[in-house]
């Protein structure tokens, strides 16, 4: 991963024009210069030139970034603010140590067995700890644990993690490709139904699926927290797990995991670059396999739902916006409608929403507004993190829309399903 020193040229590319003020979701929530990309790039530059110490205010300002890439996408000079901020955070972690929460993140995700235990304990206790709310407002649960605001609504933890429920190899038809499914933590611990839908979709196409048991967290929360050693450790473990058997593709159903494997890892060395090249988002894979046409040929559904799509930042910034929509639009039960500003960040931002829940809620509230404006009953997306945040935002706004993964709608539509 690039160090702050290596990004000097990129920092100097910022001509301070202010265009990011129109696109930064954090600045939208709190209008002051330290919150916008231009300010954070200026601070990173000042840190690099020893103009300023890593004092409390600098650390606070640099923590106020979702790493969503909205600014870079619209920047006339394409300044990679998310890379600059992430590098600055790694420098802070090196010099000042990780924050308490950052340490907790690194400790848990860096040790997959511990993570499994913690998550399973959450699942077993969820009936006792979490207050269940009516189904029609989404699964609203309170999560009164340290670091999490009591006000936040979260899905329950799975009683049995997804990867413990499925075999490691699911054979497909001869002549069809073999893919490794990188599940990520969201699907494994919170949304196993998405994993099941993934398996159903690929089985439908006759693809051989490998779900390596030894895979770990992709490491993106550690990127957000600034823990480079944790990222490298996880990347190594995942590389080993995903390449132990020959596969044609490594497929993800989580935008953040896709960015981890497909983008962050690429900077870690040649073997990681190869893994990055093989990594594909599920809808890119399905679209290339011609699934949209097969879906269009299905008989029309008796009942249609109005569905909109939210672009996860980690796909949008890498140009993946068409394929998820193509699959969604082709589903027989879907009456697709585009919401305003579908491409703006939901406000989760890895560990951002844990540090800055108030701003995160403000950013989410705008999103909930846009969902309401679209008139959709369902919001479909391609990232468990976004699902969690969007549902929380809609719950707070008092909306009754449900947030789902496109795969869940796809599994519902596939023939052979009653």
């Amino acid at each position: 991963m690039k160090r702050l020193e290596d990004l000097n040229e990129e920092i100097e590319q910022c001509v301070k024009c202010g265009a990011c003020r129109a696109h930064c979701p954090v600045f939208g929530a709190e209008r002051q210069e330290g919150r916008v990309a231009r300010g954070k790039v200026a601070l990173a530059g000042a840190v690099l030139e020893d103009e300023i110490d890593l004092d409390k205010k600098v650390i606070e300002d640099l923590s106020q970034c979702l790493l969503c890439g909205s600014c870079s996408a619209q920047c006339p000079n394409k300044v990679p603010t998310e890379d600059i901020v992430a590098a600055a955070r790694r420098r802070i972690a090196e010099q000042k140590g990780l924050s308490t929460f950052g340490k907790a993140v690194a400790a848990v995700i860096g040790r997959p067995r511990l993570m499994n235990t913690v998550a399973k304990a959450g699942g077993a206790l969820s009936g006792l700890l979490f207050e269940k709310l009516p189904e029609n407002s989404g699964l609203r649960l309170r999560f009164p644990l340290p670091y999490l605001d009591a006000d936040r609504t979260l899905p329950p933890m799975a009683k049995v993690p997804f990867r413990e429920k499925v075999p490691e190899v699911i054979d497909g038809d001869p002549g069809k490709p073999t893919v490794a499914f990188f599940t990520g933590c969201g699907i494994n611990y919170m949304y196993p139904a998405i994993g099941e839908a993934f398996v159903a979709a690929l089985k439908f196409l006759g693809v051989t699926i490998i779900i390596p048991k030894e895979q770990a967290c992709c490491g993106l929360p550690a990127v957000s927290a600034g823990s480079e050693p944790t990222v490298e450790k996880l990347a190594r473990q995942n590389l080993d797990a995903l390449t132990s058997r020959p596969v044609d593709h490594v497929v993800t159903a989580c935008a953040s995991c896709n960015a981890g494997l497909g983008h962050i890892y690429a900077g870690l060395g040649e073997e990681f670059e190869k893994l990055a090249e093989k990594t594909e988002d599920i809808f890119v894979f399905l679209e290339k396999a011609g699934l949209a046409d097969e879906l269009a040929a299905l008989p029309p559904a008796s009942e249609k739902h109005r569905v909109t799509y939210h672009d996860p930042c980690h796909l949008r910034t890498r140009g993946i916006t068409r394929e998820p929509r193509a699959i969604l639009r082709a589903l027989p039960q879907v009456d697709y409608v585009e919401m305003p500003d579908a491409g703006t960040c939901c406000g989760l931002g890895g560990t951002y929403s844990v540090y800055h829940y108030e701003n995160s809620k403000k950013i989410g509230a705008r999103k909930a507004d846009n969902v309401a404006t679209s008139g959709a009953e369902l919001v479909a997306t391609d990232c468990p993190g976004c699902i969690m945040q969007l549902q929380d935002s809609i719950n707070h706004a008092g909306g009754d829309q449900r947030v789902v993964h496109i795969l869940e709608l796809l599994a519902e539509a596939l023939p052979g399903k009653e």
Partner: protein
Amino acid sequence: MIEPRLVKILRDIVGDDHVTTEKADLICYSYDATQQKFLPDVVVHPISSEEISLIMKMANAENIPVFPRGAGSGFTGGSLPTRGGIVLTTERMGSILEIDEENLIATVEPGVVTEQFQKAVEKVGLFYPPDPASLKFSTLGGNVAECAGGPRCVKYGVTKDYILGLEVVTPTGDVITTGGPTMKGVVGYDLTKLLCGSEGTLGIITKIVIKLLPMPEAKKTMLVLFDSIDGAAAAVSAIVSNKIIPTTLEFMDGRTVDCVREATGLEVPKEARAVLIIEVDGDRDHLSGMAGKIEKIIESLGVVEVRVAETAEESEALWQIRRAVSPSLRKVNPDKFNEDICVPRSKVPEMIRRVDAISDRHGIPIVNFGHAGDGNIHVNIMIDKKVPGDMEKAEAAIEEVFRGALELGGTMSGEHGVGIAKAPYIPLEISEKAAEYMKTLKRALDPNNVLNPGKIFLDE
């Protein structure tokens, strides 16, 4: 360093949370789009004219300079705290106070972002035409202080043509109003017009009364490629003399077209040495046939190709070409001086020839694009500051460009203002007597010289 006693006074005025002396904040309010940097001593975020009035009174009593700031997106340093002191931002004053559909006017606070205001009035079928390139992020307060322009000015005029009245905190801390919500008004001096474009040196704008127009029903966009800049310029004259005033008449010279082609791979034939983007608006019936009429007017002027947008998407694709210009310039050289001279419309080809000669003489690339319809040319001098000698060449070229524009009856700046960036060149354009007239005004209104000192006139 500012005395803690004074910071305490500021905290009492605007509240603890809205005053900061943290180094990180001082850095964040030290720059604008000129890329120059001056650290203030303190940043304040007031929310009302009353608070700003108290701040100005304190600044006068204690002799501390105050630098008002909108989005900090100016190109000439109008908001830079060149002498330390207080940066006063309008970021918390961002409300649209009223949209009066009966009288077609609106009242806003200075921190409202221009595009957000445009969207709000368009929702009720109204139209605020000024469209500076920064409209997605610059503020109306900043637009008024700099008298911002934009492509649509050809037909609709600049910011000051839409400002009916202002509420202003004077340099000594009084709150006054100028003009008002009427379409006419000649009682007293026209202070509204004086304050528009005064670059924050004569008062801090706290409220703006804006004139609106009905939203035109439709628009039509076309892109025309010419084999020479003369053809494009002749086309501009021909269109206007045929009694058609387009909404926008944007041009790019051959060097700009080359940059865009190289950077983006856009399909523009090599023979194209100039491009015009022409947009007309009005009633739908009136517009149909307009593109054909324009094509007929210009057909004998060396047209290589005409592309007419039939849908909103096609129109957007044509504008993409224009928007690709700025980013693609970086490929030429990393550093850019963006001057915005304005010459009489008929002198555009002569000016472009002069700029090309200056470019060749100094051996540095200069690309020209901009608003052909009103003679406002963005002259981009592309250098690499790291190359020894490039800075000196650029400075010499800038002065020659200014002199050239003035010789042709033009001005050094159509839109960006003077600030500090163009201040050294003021004597080229403004006579000693005229400068003295301006300075006398400033000295009378700001006797302690605390409001945005050293702007427009560096030695003041």
